[in-house]
């Protein structure tokens, strides 16, 4: 994976497979504390403790189409090569939270990549799932909530190309505005 946006696309697929109806994404950029956190929480079916212990093993997967599962192991590796770590917590019937912490200024820390595009691809491909994306930069915060978007759209499909493009630009501009 070349950047964190690609990891995000990948990790959220786990939440979708787990039957989540609400997926919460946090990107927390704290240059002053030299930390960067990317976290995905869902209300999917969750995992038992013994399964949580196994998910970072590349030869463990719950799927039957193939024998390896590399999403979480690669995410963990990306976090650890930047001096950070990956933490997963899960409870059956409640959901799962995957949090990766990175050393912000570490030379091996992956670039963040195009997060607005990743969010919009996920949102438009899964219109029935609600997403809440929070971006934090130092103390400033921007929240993109698909429930609010759907309310504003009053039934107009969210995955209509004009709307997709608008939403992507909206997220991008709001994220940039926090850094000024």
């Amino acid at each position: 994976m070349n950047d964190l946006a690609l990891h995000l696309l990948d990790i959220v697929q786990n939440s979708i497979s787990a039957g989540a109806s609400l997926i919460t994404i946090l990107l927390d950029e704290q240059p002053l504390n030299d930390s960067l956190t990317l976290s995905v929480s869902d209300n999917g079916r969750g995992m038992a403790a013994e399964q949580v212990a196994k998910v970072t093993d590349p030869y463990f997967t719950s799927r039957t189409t193939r024998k390896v599962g590399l999403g979480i192991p690669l995410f963990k590796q990306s976090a650890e090569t930047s001096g950070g770590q990956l933490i997963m917590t899960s409870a059956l019937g409640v959901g799962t939270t995957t949090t990766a912490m990175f050393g912000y200024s570490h030379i091996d820390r992956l670039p963040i990549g195009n997060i607005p595009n990743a969010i919009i691809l996920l949102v438009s491909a899964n219109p029935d799932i609600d997403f809440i994306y929070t971006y934090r930069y130092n103390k400033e915060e921007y929240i993109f909530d698909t429930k609010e978007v759907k309310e504003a759209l009053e039934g107009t499909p969210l995955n209509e190309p004009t709307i997709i493009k608008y939403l992507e630009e909206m997220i991008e501009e709001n994220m940039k505005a926090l850094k000024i």
Partner: protein
Amino acid sequence: MNKIKSLSDLRKIKQDVENRLDLREKSDNPERHVQIKVAMATCGIASGAREVMNAFIEKIAQDKLDAIVTQTGCMGYCHAEPTVEIRKPGEEPIVYGHVDVEKAVAIVDKYIKQGELLEGIIPVNYQTV
């Protein structure tokens, strides 16, 4: 600097979109539309599925096609990623392998619009869930 885009402005463009949609509610009746499913598991993403999905969305917007782009997980064809499943109404789905931006455009122009089969089809016999 221009004003930052917000949800209140979204309400304005929503009206234009509605006028163009001419009552065909996409989300309610997906069977009427061509479905393009981009496989986006770890294997797909690592081989460029994101660029392919963006290319399909852009092409469909450009040509104003009645199609929706969604994602699927890994279908077990990791060797041929990025893979894309095209499902036309009333037809058996077809899976194309090794799709890149150029091929995505060709799939729309030749297969979706004209029904002409392109190279790179993965012979399959499965049902998606």
